[in-house]
């Protein structure tokens, strides 16, 4: 019997190791270890054994079963691994085939630039304001110290809705300064972006409708140094660290002192090139300390409070930011243009 078992063992282990598929392996398991298998057949002869031999043979049989089972498991694992490998090989794809298209929309480049600016100011504690585009001349001009007779009030420059030149399309976002001063509690820190309108024919650099963003701070002890520091910080965030700027005296009716801010030409580094028209600098915005008359007209005590304000054209900024050569592209809205941003 022992010899039978040994014979079974040799035969079975050889067959198991040589099994080439999970199916034939299972067949071997049934053949040797199944209820009607060869091991069972041998064990059925146990009855003929003596009482002393039985436990020994039983132990041997169990050992053999365990050995065969373990061999089957090993082979099974091997065959399974091979089968998986074969399947994975079969399932391999050409990864260079383009993915399923997910068509995302695009933010307009102008608003992309604007959102950057808004976020910078919001981070500094500024509130974003919205205001009317159909505006009173008193807000657009008078309360900004541009009285009757100021050239920008001419009908050749500004769009009007009545013969008395009372209601107009705002020509700047600056009336939002007045609206903020009249309605908000001090201290005030606001930015007010929006559409503005001037009577310019459409060409590569002009449009009768364009966008500005206005900013204003009013508090006790606000200085021109604050204006410079804050705007420098904004320019660094917009154009990168180390951006060189300069401030030049200028004139606006509603600020005193007034200035314009230039950014050193990124192309030539200030030497002068066609991009900066040989000046080495590119003008980015107008700013200044809010004129005391303007503060007083809006009921703010100019002896106690000071403030600064700036106004910046957005189209030009976006055009610079994305190297857009023609302003008309901004309002043409060709999807081939829009989808570049």
């Amino acid at each position, binding site marked *: 019997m022992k010899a039978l078992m040994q014979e079974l063992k040799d035969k079975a282990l050889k067959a198991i190791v040589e099994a080439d598929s999970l199916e034939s392996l299972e067949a071997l398991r049934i053949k040797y270890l199944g209820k009607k298998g060869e091991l069972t057949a041998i064990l059925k002869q146990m009855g003929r054994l003596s009482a002393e031999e039985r436990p020994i043979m039983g132990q041997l049989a169990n050992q053999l079963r365990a050995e065969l089972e373990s061999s089957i498991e090993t082979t099974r694992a091997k065959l399974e691994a091979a089968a998986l490998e074969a399947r994975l090989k079969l399932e391999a794809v050409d990864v260079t085939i383009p993915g399923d298209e997910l068509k*995302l929309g695009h933010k307009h480049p102008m*608003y992309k630039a604007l959102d950057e600016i808004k976020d910078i100011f919001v981070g500094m504690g500024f509130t974003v304001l919205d205001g009317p585009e159909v505006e009173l001349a008193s807000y657009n001009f008078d309360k900004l110290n541009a009285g009757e007779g100021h050239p920008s009030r001419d009908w050749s420059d500004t769009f009007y809705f009545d013969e008395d030149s009372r209601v107009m*399309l705002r020509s700047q976002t600056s009336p939002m300064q007045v609206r903020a001063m009249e309605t908000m509690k001090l201290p005030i820190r606001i930015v007010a972006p929006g559409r503005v309108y001037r009577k310019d024919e459409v060409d590569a650099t002009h449009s009768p409708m364009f966008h500005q963003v206005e900013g204003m701070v009013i508090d006790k002890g*606000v200085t021109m140094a604050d204006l410079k520091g804050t705007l420098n910080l904004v320019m660094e965030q917009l154009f990168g660290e180390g951006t060189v700027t300069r401030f*030049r005296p*200028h004139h606006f009716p509603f600020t*005193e002192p007034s200035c314009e801010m230039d950014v050193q030409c990124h192309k030539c580094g200030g030497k002068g090139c066609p991009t900066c028209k040989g000046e080495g600098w590119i003008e980015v915005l107008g700013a200044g300390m809010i004129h*005391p008359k303007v503060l007083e007209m809006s009921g703010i005590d100019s002896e106690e409070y000071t403030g600064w304000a700036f106004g910046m054209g957005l189209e030009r900024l976006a055009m610079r930011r994305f190297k857009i050569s023609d302003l008309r592209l901004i309002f*043409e809205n060709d*999807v081939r243009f829009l989808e570049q941003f």
Partner: protein
Amino acid sequence: MNLSRKWLTEFVDGVSVSDIDDREFAEAMTLSGSKVETYEDLGAEINNVLVGRILSLERHPNSDHMWICRIDVGGDEPVQIVTGAWNIHTGDLVPAALHNSTLPGGKKITKGKLRGELSNGMLCSLRELNLDERDFPYAVIKAAALLNDYHPLDAEKPSIPADIKAGDKVFGPVVAAKALAVETVGVNVYKCSLDIGASTVDVETDCQNIHEGDMVAYNTKAASICTLDDLRAQQAEFPHCISDGIFVLHEDGVKPGDDIRPVIGADDHVIEFEITPNRPDCLSVIGLAREAAATFGKELKLHEPEVKGGADGRLDELLKVEVPAEELCPRYTARMVRNVRIGPSPKWMRERLRAMGVRPINNIVDITNYVMMEYGQPMHAFDYRYVKGGKIIVRRAGDGEELTTLDGNVRKLTSNMLVIADDTRAVGLAGIMGGENSEIVSDTVDVVFESANFDGTCIRKGALALGMRTEASAKFEKGLDPMNTLPAVNRACELVEMLGAGEVVDGVIDVVNKLPEPTVLALRPDKVNALLGTDVPVARMQEILRSLQFGVNGETVSVPSWRADVEHYSDLAEEVARFFGYNNIPCTLVHGESTLGGYSDEQLLEQQLGSLCRAAGYDEIITYSFISPSYYDKIRWASDDPRRKSFRILNPLGEDTSIMRTTTLPSMLEILTRNYNYRNKAARLYELGRIYQLGGEDGLAVESKMLTLGTYGPKASFFGLKGLIEAVMKDIRAKDVHFEACADNPSYHPGRCATVWAGSDCIGVFGQIHPLVAANYGVDAEFYCAELALDELMLARGEDPVYTPLPKFPAVTRDIAVVCDISIPVARLIDCIMTSGGEYLKGCSLFDIYTGSHIAPGKKSVAFSITMRSDDQTLTDDHAEETMKAVLTALEQKFGAIIR
């Protein structure tokens, strides 16, 4: 405003081109507040052009018209230059462009051979040096008709025989004469010895093209040499006898070898400034000199005009001035000059005017322009002859009154305009342009110089209404210093005397209606430093203000009359900052009480909607807020549709941009159409833009924002768009969202249009654009659009989510298909299912709609997947059956829908 740097040095030392180059000068002036636009070296293009003296002149052996000149250009050896011009003579000084020289316009001159003869350069005409006769009036060329240049128009029938000899008759008293000798005896005066056959005569002529050996036509009766006009000849008959040629110099102190640039005034540099409207004082050489002196820390040297006077007559008898329109004319100052000698002004004056961009005309006119440039005070000169009644009246024009201005145009005036008139008529448009009827002409004898101050707004509006903005009006409109009129008129008279252009009558007429009170301010150094964020010492502030000619007495500052823009300590702060240097002000950050900042709920909603649209593949667009009224027709709004009431721009750029839109639909359709016409296969677009309706506060607009969607292309469909709108409503957590068919919106397809609702509030409309609207845009494609009101979306926003526990027990799903009338909306079937199913019914989704075979005509089969679940136990089959039975019963009772 142009500035001649040479002129500037008259008032400020140490700022010449050799002291400070253009770039440095421009940079410093820009940073102190006078923005430089451009700068130009007037002689930059002229190189290696020298003064040459013609040593000898001989006819070119191989040409019928060229001359070979030997020229002394200051070197050891004379140079040989060949020229085709005939107006030069031995001894003349001429501009010689030598080998490797350059001329204006980038023209390069090199040596070369002309018909075999070496030419080492070129002699220059006025034009080749970018000049004309007005710059050098003596350089006008007059040509005699040279018979040896005669080319008959008809070779068969010459008017003058080819073999004509001295003494032969040409016609009448005119005979052929041969020049035996020609001698230069003065500026453009030549003595010619002529052989007239029987005898010789000596004659003086101003024709410059005659040389020894030439045959001329001599009028024996008039004893003069004939020009082409005298012979009534055509230019083609005498092709080389032309009034053009070399620029022969008659300048003092000029010698061979001199650089031509200083000789012709091309050694100046011109700076172009952008002067802001608050600084009309800088529209003058003196104003800019003041700024330059302060900028570079130099002394300003001004000059008090001195007039000798003494002409015959008394001013008060000769001239009276009345100013009835006194509110428009704060000051009117005038002087008179008699026995004027109209002629060219001197070279230095012409050069300076030219550098400033002003064309020289004649001495009197040039003086008025010179003073305007120097003092910034526009001047006008009238011919006294035409001031009828010896009286000048400054009055408003009559409505419809006409005046022919100096430019020859007839101007129709209104009573808002100011005229200078005599007793009978207007002779000038005050502050804008003189009248043709009183223009200074060559025989003018007595001149009135006007130096007045007019109301800026009146001049600006008048110039604008007449479309004639002049140098003078551009200055007046900014509001000039009334204190400047007297020095300016005196300066003009001084120049008249200096130029010997006339005799000045003693006395000044000076009508003063209103002079501004001098402004006196407290300096308030602490406030100035507090405003600037600086620590500038008081002494430095005072020094800066003094350098700008402010009166400074301790902390009291008297503002000069020309600085009407300075009226507050903050204005003084700007003056201090300008010269302390804006870039020396430190940089600090916002400080003080902190503010929260951030976006409003509306702005956050806009951001949310924008993100959602982009996630759905829609691109953002920006369109004009103004449209044409005809766009309402294009979207088929009825002619009496109340929404047509729009804000109308009274002065639009054009009809297309003349009204403020009350709908964004035409803007979106225009952009869709444009993309479609550009053959872009598909477009998905959104805009967050405003509409402008009547009825706002203060007569302003109600400006509501709209989310407008538009799409076309292979994937565009009604339900595609509806899916996005549903997503929008879901994203803002709107409650009770439903859609209603909308067949009466004229812009949309009546069967493919719906309104969107949240409860009882209509959020907007969407659908396929009506084919007739598409046709109005010239498009044969399906456009889909949506118009959603932001205000409504704002109101429809649901509350913040609150967590509901996830289901603990499994759901049971049953699919059913019912057959019902084709007209029954699916939404009503779903409503019916949801309301009739009881507590276990949790969801119902449509998965199929079918019409066709096996379904009766007029019927449709609608299939739903129904989800049921109990919250506290596993749902039993009985419960599921009960629920389904209730649903089916309700569907049958309500809609006659039968299970299929």
